[in-house]
Structure formats: C-alpha cells, structure tokens
C-alpha cells in the first residue's frame, strides 16, 4: 500500500489560477499557473516559450559582424550588453586588442544602460505596486538617460555601439557630449536620491513590500539566481568586480539581506549611484587615442565563451568561427536562471502579491525564449 502511495503523497492542490499568456498585469507574454489554497500561493509554475523567434538559428552561418548586430535584437532593454558580449567572444577568439578609449566608451554605454534598466524596473515595480505617481516620476527621470543614449548611439533603444576592435565612429565622445553626460548624471543622481528618500520614508509602501515575496538565501543559491536578485538575498557576487574591463574603476557591490521585495527594490535603487560613480570615473579618466583597432585578421577558431555582468545578472555567449562565419551559437540570459527564483518567491504569499513577487526578480522573457527543443534526431 505504501509503495503505491509514494506518488500520491505529494499534496494535490485543486485550485489553480492561470494567468497569461496575454495578461493585463504582465506586458510580456508568459504563462503563470498559481496553485492556491485559502488565497495563499502554495506552488507556482512559469512557462516560457511563447516568444520563441529562433535568433540563434538565424545567426548560424552569418558573417560575424552581422551576427553581432543581430544579438542586439534579442532584447530591447539590455541590447548593449548582448552586442558587447558577442563582440567580446570574437575579440577573445581572434586576440583583437581593444583601444583603451573604446573600452571606456563601452563601459559608459553599459552603465547608462544599467541606469535605464533599473529605472524601468523601479517604474514597472511601482506600477504593479499600484503607485502610478512614482512610476511616472521614474519614467521622467529615465528620459534623461534615454536622451543621453540617443546622443551617443543615435537611437533610443538599440544603439549598436561596440564593433569588432572598438566602437563605432558615431559614438566618439567630444567635449559637448561629455558635458551633456556630466549634467545628466548630476540631474539623475539628485532626483534618484530624492526618490529613494521619499520611497523609504513612505510607511504605506514600506508596509506593503516588507516581508512579501521572500526568497531565501539557500533557495537563491540552489536555484542559481543571478544578478541583483541574488544580491538581494545577501550573496556578495558581482561579476563586474572580477572582469578585467572594470579593473580601473572603484565601486561598491550592493547587497541586502532579506530577499523580499523591499530588498530587491533597494538593491536596484542603490546600484544607480554606483553606476553614476563609474560613469564619472570613466569620463574623468577618458584616455586619448583611437577608438577602433582595424589591424586584425580573420581566422578559424574553436568555440569561445564569454561572461559579463548585465543589469539582470550573468550573460553568456559562445560561438566558434569558421571562414569568418558564426557557428554553434549559444546565448544564455540571466532571466532563464531567475525563473526558478520567481517561482519560489511566489510561494507563501497572498495571491494578490504573486505578480509583485514575480516582477521583483526583474523578468525579461523576451531575452529568455530562445531554447531549441530537439524533438526528433
């Protein structure tokens, strides 16, 4: 009898609340199934795969320059991270040396992108929280950063700044642009500190987000959560500290202890001044010289990997080069490892907090949907 009961011992929860794939609370299409008992979430399941566009399949066999610019289209929020990492793979494989000035411009772009991504997170989080005023304020501050990105890259969303061996000539920083970035950073810092003070001193918001959607430290490590989601549970890991590109910059890694929505929001809020610090250092020490290194030759290389820290965590790209064309492309984005964290963060909270608990992990499902399922070989 016991032998048979082994499977059925697992508690079966009958009430299921499905959400999605198109749902009003989530901009992106994904499917959540919440298993509910007395309005408390007991289990959650997130299914992705709706946005699958097969970017890796399209990249296969393209010339490496084209493939690099295609990686940008994986995600519209962290597009610079994708193209930077993809370019870095080829640079590592071919041994291309990047001029110092180009590296600094890349880092300025990356940190500006982190600013706008975190601000978008705060705006979206406030909107889901039900505080539209904060969301609008956040969008207003974010507009400064978007204008800076447009100034450097020429487009508000996909800038395409890094190319093999440097950055595009379009992204050269002259005195006027540097002054604009300086002014923008002063403005953003002032407004963000103001926002943070108002946010933490609002008792209504703090009581709404404290202790809700808790992700335990052990769970976060076990589920291999990355990025700010992991740092919000108290794990002190930031790949930027270990990347040689960031060696000459001085910044702090922000961690919080609780793993709830409050910690997640605070980690992102406090990372914004750190990013501003990096941008200021980069501008103050911007080296002179060329921004592109054209002296390199194409050759065949084995599969090369590269990891960088992007606004949402750790991003992985790898491919091999064959006759100047890209083969065996694999992209692994931070959100795919954070899905487990999202499911665990829902458990134990009230059903009205479930959406907030998912949003706290900063999901980007458009990045995530690229897995190729081989049904028949």
């Amino acid at each position, binding site marked *: 009898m016991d032998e048979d009961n082994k499977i059925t011992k697992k508690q079966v929860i009958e009430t299921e609340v499905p959400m999605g794939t198109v749902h009003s609370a989530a901009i992106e299409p994904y499917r959540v199934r919440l298993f509910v008992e007395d309005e408390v979430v007991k289990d959650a399941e997130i299914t992705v795969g*709706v946005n699958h566009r097969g970017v890796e399949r399209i990249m296969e066999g393209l010339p490496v320059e084209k493939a690099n610019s295609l990686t940008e289209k994986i995600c519209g929020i962290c597009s610079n991270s994708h193209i930077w990492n993809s370019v870095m793979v080829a640079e590592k494989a071919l041994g291309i040396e990047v001029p110092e000035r180009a590296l600094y411009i890349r880092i300025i772009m990356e940190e500006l992108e982190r600013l706008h991504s975190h601000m978008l997170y705060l705006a979206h989080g406030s909107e889901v929280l039900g505080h539209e005023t904060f969301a609008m304020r956040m969008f207003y501050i974010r507009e400064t950063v978007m204008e800076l990105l447009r100034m450097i890259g020429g487009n508000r969303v996909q800038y395409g700044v890094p190319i093999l061996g440097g950055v595009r000539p379009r992204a050269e920083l002259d005195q006027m642009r540097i002054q604009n970035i300086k002014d923008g950073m002063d403005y953003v810092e002032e407004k963000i500190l103001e926002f943070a003070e108002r946010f933490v001193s609002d008792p209504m918001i703090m009581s709404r987000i404290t202790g809700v959607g808790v992700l335990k430290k052990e769970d976060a490590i076990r589920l291999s959560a990355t990025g700010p989601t992991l740092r919000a549970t108290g794990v002190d890991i930031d790949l930027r500290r270990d990347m040689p590109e960031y060696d000459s910059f001085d910044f702090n890694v922000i961690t919080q202890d609780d793993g709830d929505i409050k910690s997640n929001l605070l980690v992102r809020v406090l990372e914004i001044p750190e990013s501003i610090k990096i941008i200021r250092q980069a501008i103050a020490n911007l080296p002179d010289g060329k921004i592109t290194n054209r002296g390199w030759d194409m050759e065949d290389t084995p599969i090369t990997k590269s990891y960088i820290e992007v606004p949402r965590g750790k991003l992985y790209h790898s491919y091999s080069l064959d006759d100047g064309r890209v083969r065996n492309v694999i992209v692994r984005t931070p959100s795919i490892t954070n899905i487990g964290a999202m499911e665990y963060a829902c458990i134990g909270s009230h059903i009205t907090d479930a959406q907030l608990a998912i949003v706290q992990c900063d999901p980007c499902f458009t990045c995530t949907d690229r897995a190729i399922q081989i049904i028949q070989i």
Partner: protein
Amino acid sequence: MSLKSYSRARAVHVMLVYTGGCNGCDIEIVNCIFSPKYDAEQYKIFLTWNPREADVLVVTGPVTKHNEQPLREIYKAIPEPKAVIAAGACALMGGVYKNINGDIPSEEIMGPVDNIIPVDAKVPGCAVRPEDVLAGAVAALPKLLNAK
C-alpha cells in the same frame, strides 16, 4: 452627434499587445503614453489592458507561432469600431527575425501583422520613436470618429 461618439472622441483607449518582439517598441509605447515628457494622456489617449474597453489595438512584434491565436482572439474581443496600429519594423515586415533574404525563412514567425488582422496605420522604426507613435495614433483616429 450621439452621446456614444461624443464620448468616444474624448477618450480613446489604446491596448498594447506584444507578439514576440524585443521589448524595445513596447517600452517606447508605454513610455509615450505614460511618461510625463510625451504624455499622450493630455491628448485623451489612455492605455488599457482590457480588449473590451479598447478602441485602438497597437501590435508590436513579428507575431510568433504561439501568439497568432491570442492575437486573433484579442482582435475579435474589441468592440466595433476599432482600429489597428502596427508599430515597429517587426510588425510591419517581420523585422530581422523573419530572415526575409536569408537561406531559410523562419518557421517560427507568422507575421507580419498584415497576414493575420487588418492594419489601419503603420508606424515604422526599430525601435519606434514616441513621436511616431503619437502620429500613428492620430492617423488611426478618423476611422474611429467617423464611424456611425
């Protein structure tokens, strides 16, 4: 002018549906309606997530295989008169994902949006600029307002 058309002219509700793009257009559209800088709400254009109260459907993305059926159903659920805006390069011609000139056209992409539902206004750009979204919304308005 009936009460219905009077009130419709003063509150145009836009529903945004995302069919598998890269998120860039979506955020720009939300930004355009929501952010105080562009603030489409001052022109009485409001964002809604409910198809039954929407007048205008804004579609972004190249319409992936799994999103085709939901898109048709959302279009059906919107009451007449309705207008559809296709926003972004993906929605207009499949974008980079369709692999138009490539060796094998992608099987995952059912778009462009034209193939699935009738489109009234087209907004180009990758990603769309908020100014263009406003212009597209204005181009779609006569169809709504002149309907009997």
